[in-house]
C-alpha cells in the first residue's frame, strides 16, 4: 500500500458511499489523507477525488467483511458510519484493512490503535443511543407523537427497534436535527427518511396540562437536603436540556411556533438509507 499523502476521498454522505470509498482505496492500493462526506468538505490544498456510490461495490465490502472476517467486524463498520466522529470514514477504512489482514481476531485486538479508536467511537455511539432511549420527549400533536433530538451521533437506526416496539400502537416521529433525518412509525411500519426541517404546531391544551404535571413531578421529586447539581450535570450534560420538557423554565414556550403545515420539510437529494432501514419488529 502506498500512502496517498495528498488525496481526499469525497462521498455522498451515505453508508453505501462510505463503503465505496473503502472499496476504491483497496483497488487503488492507497490510503487517502481523509475520507469526507460532500457536505462536510472544507476548502483545502489537498486534491479531491469524488467517489461515486455504486451499491454493488458497497455490498462487496460489506459481504466480504461478514464472510471473510466476521459479522461483528461488519457491524463495527456500520456502527462507525453512524458515529459522529470527524474521522470515522478513514477509521472505517483502516479498520477494514486490518480486518482483512488479521481475520476474526481483529475485534479482540483492543490494544491496537485502530481497533481501540474504532471501539471508542462505537462505545460513544451506543452510550448516546442508550441515553436517548430515556431522554427523548414526545409531544402529542394530534395526528401522532413527535420528538426532536440533537445527537452527536446518528442514533436513530439504533434506537428505532426500541421505540417501535414500545410504542407499537402509536404513530410517532422522531426528528434528528443534527443529521436531518426522521424516523417515522406509522401503521406498524418504520421508515427512516431525510428531512430538512420540522415545524411543530403549538401544543394543544391537553399537551400543556401533561407537561405541567410532569414538570411538577420533576421539581418535587428532588430532595433539597441532597441537592447536587454537579452530579446532575455529570449524568445529564447540558447539551441534552434543550429538548427536555422538565428543564424548560417556562413550559409554554417549548416548541411553540406558528402553525405551518406541513410538519416536515423533505430533505433534498433524498436517499432512502436503504441499508439502514429499521427491520420490521
Amino acid at each position, binding site marked *: 500500500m502506498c500512502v496517498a499523502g495528498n488525496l481526499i476521498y469525497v462521498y455522498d454522505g451515505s453508508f453505501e458511499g462510505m463503503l465505496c470509498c473503502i472499496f476504491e482505496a483497496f483497488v487503488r492500493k492507497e490510503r487517502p489523507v481523509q475520507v469526507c462526506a460532500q457536505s462536510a468538505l472544507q476548502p483545502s490544498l489537498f486534491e479531491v477525488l469524488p467517489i461515486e456510490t455504486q451499491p454493488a461495490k458497497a455490498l462487496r465490502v460489506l459481504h466480504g467483511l461478514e464472510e471473510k472476517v466476521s459479522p461483528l467486524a461488519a457491524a463495527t463498520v456500520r456502527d462507525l458510519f453512524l458515529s459522529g466522529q470527524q474521522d470515522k470514514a478513514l477509521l472505517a477504512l483502516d479498520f477494514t484493512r486490518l480486518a482483512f489482514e488479521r481475520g476474526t481476531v481483529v475485534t479482540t485486538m483492543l490494544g491496537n490503535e485502530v481497533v481501540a479508536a474504532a471501539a471508542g467511537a462505537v462505545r460513544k455511539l451506543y452510550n448516546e443511543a442508550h441515553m436517548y432511549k430515556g431522554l427523548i420527549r414526545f409531544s402529542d400533536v394530534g395526528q401522532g407523537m413527535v420528538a426532536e433530538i440533537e445527537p452527536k451521533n446518528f442514533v436513530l437506526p439504533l434506537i428505532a427497534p426500541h421505540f417501535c416496539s414500545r410504542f407499537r400502537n402509536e404513530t410517532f416521529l422522531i426528528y434528528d436535527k443534527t443529521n436531518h433525518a426522521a424516523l417515522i412509525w406509522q401503521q406498524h411500519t418504520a421508515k427512516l427518511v431525510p428531512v430538512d426541517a420540522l415545524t411543530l404546531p403549538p401544543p394543544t391544551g391537553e399537551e400543556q396540562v401533561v407537561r405541567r404535571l410532569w414538570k*411538577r413531578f420533576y421539581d418535587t421529586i*428532588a430532595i433539597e437536603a441532597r441537592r447536587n447539581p454537579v452530579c446532575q450535570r455529570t449524568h445529564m450534560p447540558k447539551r441534552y436540556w434543550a429538548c427536555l420538557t422538565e428543564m424548560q423554565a417556562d413550559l409554554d414556550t417549548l416548541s411553540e411556533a406558528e402553525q405551518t403545515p406541513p410538519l416536515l420539510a423533505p430533505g433534498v437529494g433524498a436517499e432512502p438509507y436503504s441499508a439502514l432501514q429499521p427491520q420490521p419488529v
Partner: protein
Amino acid sequence: MDVLEKLTILTDAAKYDVACTSSGAGDSSPTGAGLGSTADCGICHTWSADGRCVSLLKVLMTNVCVFDCQYCVNRHSNETPRAAFTPTELADLTMSFYRRNYIEGLFLSSGVQRSPDYATEQIIKTLELLRGPYHFTGYIHAKAIPGTDPLLIARLGVLANRLSVNIELPSQRSLALLAPNKSKANILGPMATIRDGITESKESLVKYKTAEKFASAGQSTQMIVGATPESDYQILRLTEGLYHKYQLKRVFFSAYIPVAENALLPALDTKPPLLREHRLYQADWLLRYYDFEASEILDEEHQEFNPFLDPKCNWAVNHLEQFPVEVNRVPYEILLRVPGIGPVSAKRIARARRAGKLDWDDLKRIGVVLKRAQYFLLCKGKMRPGLSITPQNTVRALIDGAPLAKAEQLTLFGASSAPSQAELLEVASECVSRAI
C-alpha cells in the same frame, strides 16, 4: 383537589423512597395490543436536582397512614396535607407520562390507609386497570406493605415486575423503638412469600411457557441509615444475609434526613450521612459483582468504613502482600480485586489478552484507568516504567478525595476554614498510612 395538587403531595411524600431503577425485568418486545416494554439494563429518563436518576413515576397511592413510624413524614401524628389518588387518576397519569417517554413505568407505594389490606387493595385496583383495560406492558414496581394478607401479595406479584418490602431499620430493636406497628416478623413474612412466589413461577416457567410470571424483575428492599445506632458492619452483615436468605435483587440504603423533633432520633439539623450511604453502596457492589464477603470488607474489630478509602481499596492496602499480579496471567476474579479495575475493564483485559500479551501501552489503549491499578499490576513481568512503588505512594493514589472533601470538611477542620483538596489529601494519606 385536582390531579396537579395530588401529584405534588403524593410525590413529595414518596421522594424518600430510594429504589427507582427499572432494571432486571428482561428485554421484552411485546406484540399485540397495548403500550410499553421493559429493558433489562434499565433506562434513566432524567436526573433530578439531587443528581438521582429518575426512571419511574414514583408516587404514593395515598399518604394517609394509620401507622406512626417516627422517621417518616407520613406518620399518623404528623401534621401534613393528605391526599389520595383514585385508581383511574393514577392509571391515566401513568399512561400519559409513558406515552411521552417521560418514564419507564410506575413505582407505587402507599401509606397504610385504614389497614395494610385496604391500602394494598387500592394499589391492586390501579395495577389491574393498567394491566387490564389499558394494556400497559411497561415496568411496574409495587411496594408490599408489612402485615398484608399473603393472598393479596400473591395478586400483586402477578401484576408487578418487581416487589419490595422495606426492611426500614437495620435491627429489631430499632424497629420496636421507632416503628411500633411493624415487626421483624411482619416484614420478613411477605418477603418470604414473595421469594417463594418467584421461585415457584420460575420453576413452572421452565415446564410450561404459559405459566404466570411472578415479580419477574425480582425483589428488593431498602433501609434507612443513620437514624439508629447500628454499625456499618452490622448493616453489611444484614445485607449479605438478605441476599442469601431472600434472594433479593437489590438492597437499597437511604441516608436519614431528619423529619421530626424526637428524642429517639438525630436532631433536626443533622446532615444526612451521604458519605456513609455512598460507602455502603460501594460495599454492596463488592458483594454483588466482585464476589466479596461482608467479613472481608469489615469485621468485629473494624465496624465502620474507612472514610478515606473506598472499601475495595481499603481491602487492597490491607492485603498488599498479594500484589502485584501479572496482567497476562492473573485469573479474572483476582483482576477484579485490583483497585481501579471494575468488571468492564477486567472483561476487556480478559478479551484482549487472548489476542496477544499486553504491555502497559496496550492497557491504556484498551481504556484501563491506570491511576490506581498501576501500583498493583505487572505487564509481561515489568512494573510500570518510572513509577516508584512505596506504601505511601500507593495509599496516596487510592485516597478517595471527592466525597471526602464534601462530607468531612466540617467535622475535620471546623466550618470556618474549608481546606484545600491538597491539604485534605495530605491529612488523609497520613491517617491511612499510619493505620496500615
